[in-house]
């Protein structure tokens, strides 16, 4: 029970406010708690409803042949989502490889190099990148990037490689803003100590600041990963949507998210259930990444407390 000056606790004899006011305060507090609990209810509802609909996919197809089945062929009743998981992982990893250096570089630039004036341009640009709808990124990728990729490869340009570039741009804001926060939270004294020993700006960044902000940057990359796994429309418009193991990075593939959007309009019966089963996989993956970030920060605090 929080003992605050205006709210006498229940067993106190002190009567600062009238009984009616006191009851009103308690009622309001519980109303606010209820509102805060909507977030918890939301997660439970999503898990409940998507899980309820998708559970038969695990139960009837069998968890192993559903998750590790190598063929996705709903018309013949074969529901193996491994090619889709593979597609998701390939697209996500490629986007991370391209996007992370760009994002962390931008974050370091913003916190260590940019003058306030330059920062005033770059920082809003990063935030606006986050605001552009994914369908516009997809449209841009489809119309501009795809023909360019098609020129370099012998295909139509639909494939993992096109998705890598589009998705790399889309995860830059997530990783850059969080990494910048991590870098900015390092006390200035640490930088001064490094410079006082004759280190250059780069040596300070590389040997002092990046290690100090390591955990924050890793968290940022994990959340960027979550963004990449869950991204739907932009990927959908450029990957070509073939639920197979691709022969090359320029061959059409499909991811979990894109397959759901493609199949949903006509799916029925077990096919539809399997799509909800894929949504469960996506939901658990994204929640797992959030839990991982929490675990890392808890680990970090316990190390610091143990010192």
């Amino acid at each position: 029970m929080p003992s605050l000056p205006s709210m006498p606790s229940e067993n106190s004899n002190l009567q600062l406010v009238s009984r009616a006011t006191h009851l009103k305060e308690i009622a309001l507090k519980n109303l606010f708690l209820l509102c805060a609990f909507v977030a918890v209810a939301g997660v439970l509802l999503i898990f409940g409803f998507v899980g309820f609909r998708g559970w038969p996919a695990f139960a009837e197809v069998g968890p192993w042949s559903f998750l590790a089945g190598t063929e996705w062929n709903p018309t013949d009743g074969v529901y193996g989502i491994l090619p889709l998981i593979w597609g998701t992982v390939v697209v996500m990893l490629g986007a991370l490889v391209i996007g992370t250096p760009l994002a962390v570089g931008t974050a370091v630039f913003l916190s260590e190099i940019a003058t306030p004036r330059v920062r005033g341009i770059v920082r809003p640009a990063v935030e606006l990148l986050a605001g552009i709808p994914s369908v516009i990124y997809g449209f841009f990728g489809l119309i501009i990037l795809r023909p360019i990729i098609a020129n370099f490869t012998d295909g139509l340009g639909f494939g993992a490689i096109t998705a890598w570039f589009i998705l790399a741009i889309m995860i830059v804001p997530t990783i850059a803003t969080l990494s910048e926060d991590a870098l900015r939270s390092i006390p200035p004294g640490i930088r001064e100590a490094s410079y006082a020993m004759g280190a250059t700006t780069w040596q300070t960044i590389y040997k002092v600041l990046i290690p100090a902000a390591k955990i924050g940057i890793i968290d940022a990359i994990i959340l960027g990963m979550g963004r990449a796994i869950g991204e739907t429309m932009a990927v959908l418009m450029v990957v070509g949507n073939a639920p197979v193991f691709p022969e090359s990075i320029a061959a059409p593939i499909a991811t979990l998210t894109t397959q759901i959007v493609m199949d949903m309009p006509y799916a029925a019966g077990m096919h539809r259930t399997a799509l909800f089963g894929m949504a469960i996989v996506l939901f658990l993956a994204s929640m797992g990444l959030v839990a991982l970030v929490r675990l890392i920060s808890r680990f970090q605090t316990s190390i610091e407390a143990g010192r």
Partner: protein
Amino acid sequence: MNKNTANGIALALLWIAAILTVVVLGTVILYVFVNGIGQLSPEFIFTWPEGVAAEGGIWPTIVSTLYVTALAMIIVTPIAILAAVYLAEYAVQGRLVSTIRFAADSLASVPSIVMGLFGLALFVEAAGIGFSMLSAALALSFLMLPIVMRTTEEAIRSVPKYIRWGSYGLGATKWQVVSRSVLPASMPRIITGIILATGRAVGETAVVIYTMGQAINMPITPFDSGRPMTVHLYLLAMEGINLPAAYGTALLLMIMILAFNLGARYFLRRNRKV
């Protein structure tokens, strides 16, 4: 000298990373702008699409987008603000609070198509609302909730302690302190957060595609279905029909998003100076 060379190269690379980010943004915006600007006309905005190739305007899709966004905002704002008030002012750090925070973080990271399927399963089918503005708005509000909650909580926490002490000193109750001092003081930042979340909702596609329906329709009541601008753009682009209309839709969408973002920025700056 060696370390200075390395320094020079590294700094140049960091500059390139930052410039690349800005250039990419500029390219996307400029590209959509240059190709879409020829399309924009009062006829394009205010008339209905006609025929298989969706010739003509996109008015019903604009109305659907604004309708669902406004509805989602009305649903989410009170809940999110009161939830943030609880977290920032009333909650005692502990298991309950960390559960709520974990739930909010998870909600923020749920892939949008999963949110869409959830909306389909719960609101469209189980609750029997059907493909409608209301179903889509409810699904969207779960997406906006963590964003508004977080920005509001930060806004409330940034209100100096002495403002609260002043209120308590006058004999105010907790609710009076919150409603008369803390919330008004943090209002500019709260409104900024709401505007940003709304901008996010305007651009959302995967959540609304299977909750609102896809048929072009002019929504009147919250139970009407419709097709938002994002879905319209997606269908035009994927089917390759009528690319000029796709460019026009993309540009209008972009202008709306930029207006939301820059509006939030301007609003915050203006209110900070006062």
